[in-house]
């Protein structure tokens, strides 16, 4: 069964090469909105699913790319563990492969790390339909170039992800969500100052004069930090963070283009429109009708970058343009993996 699916993938890639027609790698399609519009026939990964190996005491899970994230998270939850980067699903059937390819992380990113920090190994098919394996199921591994991490966030432009091994972590024993009223400048200051102190902060969010933060850890540690920081406890904390992660919170109800700005955490951003801050200040969500050039210039001025995350009309590139020498390296890397240029054309930049 599994072999049959692999044969189908091989065949689809070979066909694409011989017909010179690109393929569009797709899991459930929950992140179809993200990135440039890619061309080609859909290569559906959802049938290639299932957890292959999970040893809770090793803190490692290995699963096929089409495995629903929900299935993986449920398996981990049974053993009191979690995906540390708290990925957004953006749909009920979001897959592991899509999660790694999109490289999007959730609220815990600033404290524990991103998808790429937890990818240990990958099995993939390159643009010649050759199955390749990089990394493994161990945490320390410096043999060969780190291709597994390179695949995180590559949006399927380098190859078809077949299998992923991830490092997982125990769920915190206790969590609490606190809220503080303050202005943006003070909120940024607080988030940065607290992140530099030994406090068990696992998520932050600022919007509309309210700073919300989550504490995670041993019960006594959460209680002590709560006592030290003060603030109003929010009972529906879990729901709050889910709303931020999945963008179902009220803030995200808007028809304006949604920009995602990655900035140094202390930067103060000046753009028209409404803003929500996450990751201790390092991530800003902005709904704005401002021209793409204006948004990008604002980000660059602060040594950051801007991505058009959701928007009806897409500019030439939804991702921040790269300097010329860097773009040249990107093109050559793309060519090394996908010499015939068949994977997800246009998803990242105009020609790849």
């Amino acid at each position, binding site marked *: 069964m599994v072999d049959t699916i692999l044969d189908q993938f091989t065949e689809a890639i070979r066909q694409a090469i011989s017909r010179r027609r690109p393929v569009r790698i797709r899991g459930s399609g929950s992140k179809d909105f993200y990135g440039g519009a890619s061309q080609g026939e859909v290569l559906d990964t959802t049938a290639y699913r299932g957890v292959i190996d999970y*040893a809770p005491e090793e803190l490692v899970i290995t699963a096929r790319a089409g495995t629903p994230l929900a299935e993986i998270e449920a398996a981990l939850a049974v053993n009191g563990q979690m995906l540390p980067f708290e990925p957004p699903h953006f749909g009920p059937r979001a897959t592991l492969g899509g999660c790694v390819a999109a490289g999007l992380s959730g609220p815990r990113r600033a404290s524990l790390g991103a998808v790429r*920090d937890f990818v240990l190994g990958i099995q993939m098919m390159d643009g010649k339909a050759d199955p390749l394996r990089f990394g493994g199921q161990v945490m320390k591994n410096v043999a060969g170039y780190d291709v597994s991490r390179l695949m995180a966030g590559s949006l399927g432009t380098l190859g078809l992800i077949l299998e992923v091994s991830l490092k997982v972590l*125990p769920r915190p024993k206790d969590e609490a969500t606190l809220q503080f009223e303050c202005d943006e400048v003070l909120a940024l*200051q607080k988030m940065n100052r607290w992140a*530099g102190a030994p406090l068990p902060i696992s998520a932050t969010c600022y919007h509309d004069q309210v700073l919300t933060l989550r504490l995670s850890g041993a019960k006594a540690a959460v209680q002590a930090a709560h006592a030290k920081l003060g603030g109003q406890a929010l009972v529906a904390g879990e729901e709050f963070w889910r709303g931020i992660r999945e963008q179902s919170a009220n803030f995200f109800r808007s028809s304006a283009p949604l920009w995602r700005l990655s900035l140094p955490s202390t930067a103060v951003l000046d753009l028209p429109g409404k803003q929500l801050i996450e990751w201790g200040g390092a991530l800003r969500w902005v709904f704005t009708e401002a021209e793409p050039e204006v948004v990008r210039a604002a980000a660059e001025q602060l040594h950051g970058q801007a991505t058009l995350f959701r928007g009806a009309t897409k500019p030439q590139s939804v991702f*921040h343009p790269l300097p010329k020498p860097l773009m040249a390296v990107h093109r*050559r890397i793309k060519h090394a993996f996908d010499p015939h240029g068949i994977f997800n054309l246009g998803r990242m930049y105009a020609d790849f």
Partner: protein
Amino acid sequence: MKSDRLIKRLREILPADSVLTEPEDLKPYESDGLTAYRKLPMLTVIPETEAQVQQILRACHAAGVPVVARGSGTGLSGGALPLENGVLLSLAKLSRILHVDPLGRTARVQPGVRNLAISEAAAPHQLYYAPDPSSQIICSIGGNVAENSGGVHCLKYGLTVNNILALRVVTIEGDILELGSTALDSAGYDLLALMTGSEGMLGVITEVTVKLLPKPERAQVLMAGFDDIEKAGAAVAAIISAGIIPAGLEMMDKLAIQAAEDFVHAGYPLEAEAILLCELDGTNEEVSEEIKRVHAILQSSGATSLRTANDEAERLKFWAGRKAAFPAVGRLAPDYYCMDGTIPRKRLGEVLARIREYSQHYGLRVANVFHAGDGNLHPLILYDANKPGELARVEAFGAKVLELSVEVGGTITGEHGVGVEKIDQMCVQFQPKELTLFHALKAAWDEQGLLNPGKAVPTLHRCAEYGAMHVHQGQVKFPGIPRF
């Protein structure tokens, strides 16, 4: 001669005393921490600025001369071994800490800055740089990035790749690339990850921005002795299954315990077959709670002795034995060879049993030091280089251990890198098509193959020879590279 023209060009770029060509001046650069491999470079250059690095690389590119970059030269796999027809590029003089941002918790430093110097610069702000390879007093951050160095706190705090934010890299063509940023996410491919651990094969690092973490409020260590190393392994699994991620979790076997105790008198139980050191850090409350839980787990796992360090002095004493394990073992025999495989922890018992078998087969003693939390095993094979035949046996033994690591689902190198040392075992870990992709990736950065050529990734030809030789192991000398 082309080398004369290159030297003339380099002397235009650099002051005269920064271009070394005399054998006695080149001698200090003949090897890195893997001293069994030595070679004098054609010449050594010691730039002081990024602009000079750029010009040097352009000159070498134009002349078609290979370049080997070097930090402090503490690497253990021969990654910085010079080439006799190549330039050795020392980054030791790019040693300034450019900026520490206490609020944003980052430090921007030049590649020659020592690992520990970063934490020292951050200390007034109660911050530190987490990765702590054992050579942290002298090893450079540029070298740490090139090797993706680890340390004893990897399970909780990650490797170098998880603790850096941005790099400035000069390509062999002299272009400057900025990879990553002080923001967390960057557009495009994660070239920051690709560059980390690339062993100087893709570009030369001229600036590193690292993440700084708040110093934990408290750290405390427990030491448990076991009469059976498998019980110690089971205790590790039990701690992690209980949802505890220790800051450090180290295991030593009997020979290592005895050597360390004899050397530094750390208070280790000499009768134990294995000891576990388990350090917990975090807020005061967190540590108190977890110490209690770990204590109970160790007890129920059959620990024959169990002590919690009472104060900072005792904590450091417990660690002193572990940190001195390599030199301590070094006192047991004229020479020792340090291995660096990583294995899935659940296979520990089986792997140690096989190592014991090999040890008997080859007639060589082994002490095992194990980063138990992350599965990184350092068997130290004891030998005497002056005894005829012992070298060949050590080589064969070492190769067996690395191949065993791959067989049980691990890797040939957890933190020391491939360099020249483990290049043949790469043929065991990777298939030809994977190695071909590695070569294509290198060519994407360095088409002519001028940056650290011959390291880290073997040619398919070499693997074919290794595979053939493998059949007749012990009878044929490996060609191509000198062996100790």
